C-alpha cells in the first residue's frame, strides 16, 4: 500500500509562512475589536509625536497612535485583497475553464476575449474603473479584480485545454454527464492545484496593488483607512518623521511576503504529494549490487555484461528495477530482449549505452565493450569509450530527432563531431545513409525537418543516424512499437540488412515476442528485473522446446493467424510483483501454474540449460529437468 503524506508540510518555509499567516489572521480579527476606537480617536495633545514608549511608532497629525492604526488597518487591507483576488479568480475560472465543456467554438470565442482583455494595460483598466465608479474601497476591489481576471482566465484556459482534449471528458459526454457536472467533477478537480497555488500567490500582489491605489488616493477614502491610505498620510511628513510611513510599509511587505511564500510552500507540498516521496541518497544507503562475483571463463565477446543492477530511489528504499543481469553479445549477433512493461528491459539496455534515466543508480561487476571494461569508468570516460561504436535507435522518433534542425544536418553531426569530416563531406555521408535506408529523394529529404517525415521514414532516418559512425553495436529500444505493420516490416528488414551489411551486432528491445523472433537470432526474456530465459530464437516456433513457463505463456498469449477461435486465448493471470519489495523466491512463482514451495522461498539461479541457452527455473517445462543436464557453470 502506498503511504501518502496527508499531514501539513514540515519544511521550514511552510512552517514559517503558516505562522506569518496565522499572525495576520489573528491581528485582523482582534485588533479592530480591542483598539478600533482608540485608533480613530483624535488626541489634540499628542499631534505628530515622535516614537516613544507610549507610542512606539509615534502619532499622526491628529494625534492617533500609528502602531495601533497599522494593526487595526490589517482587517480592511486583508479583506480587500482577498475579496479582489477571489472575485478575479472566480471570474477567471469561469471565463477560462468553462469553455472546456462548451465545445471548440466556445473555446475559440472565449480565447479571443481573454487575449483582448490581456492586451489592455493593467493600470489603464484600473483607472477607467475608478473613473466610472468613483473612488472608494469597493471600487478599488472591483478595479483590481478586473485587472486580475484575464491572467487567471489564461491560466485556467491553458490548464483546462488539456482536460478538454482528454478522452475521459469525451467519455463523460458520451455517457450524458451534464455540462455542470463535467465542469465541477471533471475540469475543476484536474486543474485545481496550480490554480490554488497561483491564487494564493496573487493575494500578496493584490495587497500591494490595493495599497498603491489607496496611496494614490483613488482607493480607500477617509475616515476609512488601510495600509495604503496610511502610507499616503505618512508620506507627507516622511522627511520629518519617516517612522510614520515605515510602520504601514513594513506591514504591507510582511503580508505580501506571507502570501507569496505560502503559495510557494503550497506548490512544493502539492508537488510532493502527487508523486511518491523518494528517500534521500543518504538514507537509502549504497545502491544494491549483484551478489555473485564476476566470473570469466568464455572467450571475450563484443559486449559482456555481468551483475548489472539498476535501482531507483523509492519511498521505502531502493526500487530494484534490474537485478543482477548478465549477458553477452557476440560480434554481428542480433539479440532480442522481451518482457512486459516494468520488466527492466529498456533500462538494462539504456544503462549499457550509458543513457540510464536520471536518478538511476547503476552498478555492475563488469560491462566490457570491445575488450574495455567501462563499469569502473566515469560517465564521461565511458561515453567516450563507447563513442561512435554504439548506435542507439529510440522508440519515439519524433522526440529523438531535434525538431528545429534539418534531418540531414542531424545525421551529419556524427561524422563532423566524431570523425572530423568537413561540412560537405559529412553532408554527403548523411545523404548516402538516408538513401541506404530506402528514403526516396534523399538529397531533398535531407533538407527537410523531422515533422515533414512520416513516422516510418523518421524511424528509418533514426536507423540511418545510428549507422553514421559505423558502429559495431546497435541498441534499439522498441524501434517499431508505434508503427503500422507494413511499415514495421520495412523497418525490421532495414535493421536486419544494415546489420548484415556492416557486420554490426544489435540488441533490440520489444514487448512483442513475434517481432523479435523474426528479427533476432537469440532471445533474452526478462521478468521483474531478471533474465528468466536466454534461448535460441528458432525454439520460439516450437513452444514445447521452451523451458521457462513465463516464456511459454508470453509466446502463447498473442493471437496468431491460426489461433483456435473457439477457445479462449491463453493469458497470464495476476500482476507483476512490486519491485520495491525483496523477492525471496522466483518472481514469477505467484503467477506460475507449476510453482512449488521451493519456488516461493528460493530464487532459481540463471544456469546453462540443455536447450543450449540459459534458464532460471526450478521446474523447466521442456522435459529436461535441471538434474539431468551437465552441471556446467558456464555462461553462454
Amino acid at each position, binding site marked *: 500500500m502506498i503511504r501518502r503524506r496527508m499531514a501539513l508540510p514540515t519544511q521550514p518555509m511552510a512552517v514559517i509562512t503558516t505562522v506569518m499567516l496565522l499572525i495576520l489572521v489573528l491581528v485582523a480579527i482582534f485588533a479592530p475589536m480591542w483598539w478600533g476606537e482608540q485608533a480613530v480617536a483624535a488626541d489634540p495633545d499628542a499631534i505628530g509625536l515622535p516614537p516613544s514608549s507610549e507610542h512606539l511608532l509615534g502619532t499622526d497629525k491628529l494625534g492617533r497612535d500609528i502602531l495601533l492604526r497599522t494593526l487595526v488597518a490589517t482587517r480592511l487591507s486583508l479583506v480587500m485583497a482577498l475579496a479582489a483576488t477571489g472575485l478575479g479568480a472566480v471570474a477567471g475560472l469561469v471565463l477560462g475553464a468553462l469553455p472546456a465543456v462548451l465545445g471548440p467554438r466556445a473555446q475559440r470565442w472565449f480565447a479571443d476575449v481573454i487575449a483582448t482583455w490581456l492586451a489592455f494595460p493593467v493600470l489603464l483598466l484600473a483607472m477607467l474603473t475608478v473613473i466610472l465608479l468613483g473612488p472608494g474601497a469597493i471600487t478599488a476591489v472591483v478595479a483590481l479584480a478586473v485587472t486580475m481576471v484575464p491572467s487567471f482566465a489564461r491560466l485556467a484556459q491553458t490548464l483546462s485545454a488539456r482536460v478538454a482534449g482528454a478522452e475521459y471528458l469525451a467519455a463523460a459526454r458520451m455517457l450524458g454527464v451534464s455540462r455542470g457536472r463535467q465542469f465541477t467533477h471533471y475540469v475543476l478537480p484536474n486543474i485545481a492545484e496550480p490554480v490554488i497555488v497561483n491564487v494564493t500567490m496573487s493575494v500578496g500582489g493584490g495587497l500591494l496593488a490595493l495599497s498603491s491605489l489607496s496611496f494614490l488616493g483613488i482607493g480607500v477614502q477617509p475616515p476609512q483607512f488601510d495600509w495604503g491610505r496610511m502610507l499616503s498620510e505618512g508620506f507627507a511628513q516622511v522627511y520629518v518623521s519617516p517612522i510614520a510611513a515605515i510602520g504601514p510599509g513594513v506591514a504591507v511587505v510582511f503580508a505580501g511576503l506571507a502570501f507569496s511564500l505560502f503559495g510557494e510552500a503550497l506548490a512544493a507540498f502539492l508537488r510532493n504529494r502527487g508523486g511518491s516521496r523518494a528517500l534521500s541518497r543518504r538514507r537509502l544507503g549504497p545502491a544494491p549490487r549483484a551478489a555473485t562475483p564476476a566470473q570469466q571463463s568464455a572467450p571475450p565477446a563484443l559486449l559482456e555484461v555481468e551483475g548489472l543492477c539498476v535501482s531507483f530511489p523509492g519511498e521505502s528504499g531502493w526500487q530494484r528495477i534490474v537485478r543482477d543481469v548478465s549477458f553477452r553479445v557476440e560480434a554481428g549477433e542480433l539479440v532480442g530482449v522481451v518482457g*512486459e512493461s516494468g520488466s527492466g528491459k529498456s533500462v538494462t539496455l539504456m544503462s549499457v549505452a550509458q543513457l540510464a534515466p536520471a536518478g538511476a543508480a547503476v552498478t555492475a561487476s563488469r560491462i566490457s565493450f570491445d575488450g574495455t571494461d567501462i563499469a569502473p569508468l566515469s560517465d564521461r570516460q565511458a561515453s567516450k569509450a563507447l563513442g561512435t561504436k554504439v548506435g542507439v535507435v529510440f522508440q519515439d522518433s519524433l522526440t529523438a530527432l531535434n525538431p528545429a534542425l534539418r534531418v540531414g544536418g542531424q545525421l551529419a553531426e556524427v561524422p563532423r563531431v566524431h570523425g572530423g569530416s568537413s561540412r560537405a563531406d559529412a553532408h554527403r555521408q548523411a545523404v548516402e545513409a538516408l538513401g541506404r535506408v530506402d528514403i526516396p529523394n534523399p538529397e531533398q529529404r535531407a533538407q527537410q525537418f523531422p515533422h515533414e517525415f512520416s513516422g516510418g521514414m523518421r524511424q528509418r532516418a533514426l536507423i540511418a543516424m545510428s549507422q553514421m559512425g559505423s558502429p559495431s553495436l546497435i541498441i534499439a529500444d522498441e524501434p517499431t512499437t508505434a508503427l503500422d505493420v507494413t511499415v514495421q516490416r520495412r523497418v525490421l528488414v532495414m535493421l536486419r540488412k544494415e546489420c548484415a551489411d556492416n557486420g554490426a551486432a544489435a540488441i533490440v528491445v520489444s514487448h512483442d515476442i513475434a517481432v523479435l523472433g523474426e528479427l533476432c537470432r537469440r532471445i533474452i526474456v526478462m521478468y521483474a528485473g531478471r533474465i528468466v530465459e536466454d534461448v535460441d530464437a528458432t525454439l520460439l516456433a516450437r513452444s514445447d522446446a521452451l523451458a521457462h513457463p513465463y516464456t511459454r505463456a508470453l509466446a502463447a498469449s498473442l493471437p496468431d493467424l491460426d489461433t483456435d477461435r473457439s477457445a479462449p486465448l491463453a493469458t497470464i493471470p495476476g500482476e507483476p510483483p512490486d519491485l520495491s519489495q525483496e523477492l525471496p523466491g522466483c518472481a514469477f512463482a505467484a503467477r506460475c501454474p507449476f510453482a512449488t514451495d521451493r519456488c516461493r522461498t528460493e530464487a532459481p539461479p540463471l544456469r546453462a540449460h540443455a536447450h543450449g541457452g540459459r534458464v532460471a527455473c526450478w521446474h523447466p517445462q521442456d522435459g529436461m529437468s535441471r538434474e539431468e543436464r551437465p552441471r556446467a557453470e558456464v555462461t553462454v
Partner: protein
Amino acid sequence: MADLVIDDLVVTFGHGRRSFTAVDGVSLTVPHGRIVGLVGESGSGKSTVARTVAGFQKAVSGSIRLGDRDLLVHRGSARERARDVQMVFQDPYSSLNPRMTVGETLAEALTIHLGRDGAGPAAVGELLELVRLKASAGDRYPAQLSGGMRQRVAIARCLAVRPQLIVADEITSALDASVQGAVLNLIRDLQRELGLSVLFITHNLAAVRYIADTTAVMRHGQIVETGDAAEIVAHPRHDYTRSLVAAIPRIEHAGTDHLLTALEATP
C-alpha cells in the same frame, strides 16, 4: 435492439483546396449481437469512422442508421444518445478521470441511466464482477491500476448504460502483449453473455481474426475488402489485404530468414 447500418459515409477535414477526404463512401453493417472488425493502418480513416459513429465528428454525406433513426440527423436526448453508442478508447491512461475512484466513475454512469437507486454499491460491484475485477477495485483511483485493469473499468463504464452498440477503438494497442489476450477474451465473453454489438477497430489482423465475426479492411478512406474474418486472413483477395497479412510478424518464422525473403517476394 437493432443493426447499425452505415451507408455511403463521407467525412472530410478542412475547407476548399486544402480539404482532405478521410472517409470516402464507406458502407458497413454491424448486425445486432455481432462483432464486426474494421482493419486498417494509420491514415486509413478507420478511427474517423469510429468517431463519426460515436458522434464526435460530423459527416459530409451518407447515413448511419441504428434501427429506424439516422444518427447523423437525429441524435436524440443526451440519455438516448448514450444508450445508442458507447465507445472504449485506445489509451486507458487518459480515458478515466484521474480524480474519481473507479466506484465513483461507474456509479456516475449508473446514476445517469438508472437514477440514484440503481447506482448503489451492489450495482457497482456487479459491473466490476462483469469485467472480472474484484469489488475492492472500486475504492481505487485509476493511477493505482494497471493498464489492463483500467481498460476493464472503461469497458464496465460502457456496460453501465447498456448501449445498443459499443465502438472499440484500438482498445488493445496500448496494452502489454501479455494483457491484450485477456482483454480480447473479455470482449468475446461479454458479447456472448450480453449479446453485445461491437464495432472493433484495430490495426491487428490477428486480433480481429480471433474476435470478429465479419471484417472490413480499409485503405485511403475506402473499404477494399469485406468478409468472414477468418476467411479474409486465410485467403485475402485484395492486394492490400495480402500485404497486410504478409507483414504480420509470426512466431513460427522465429529464427529464420523469412524477413528478408518475404521482402523480395512482395513488390
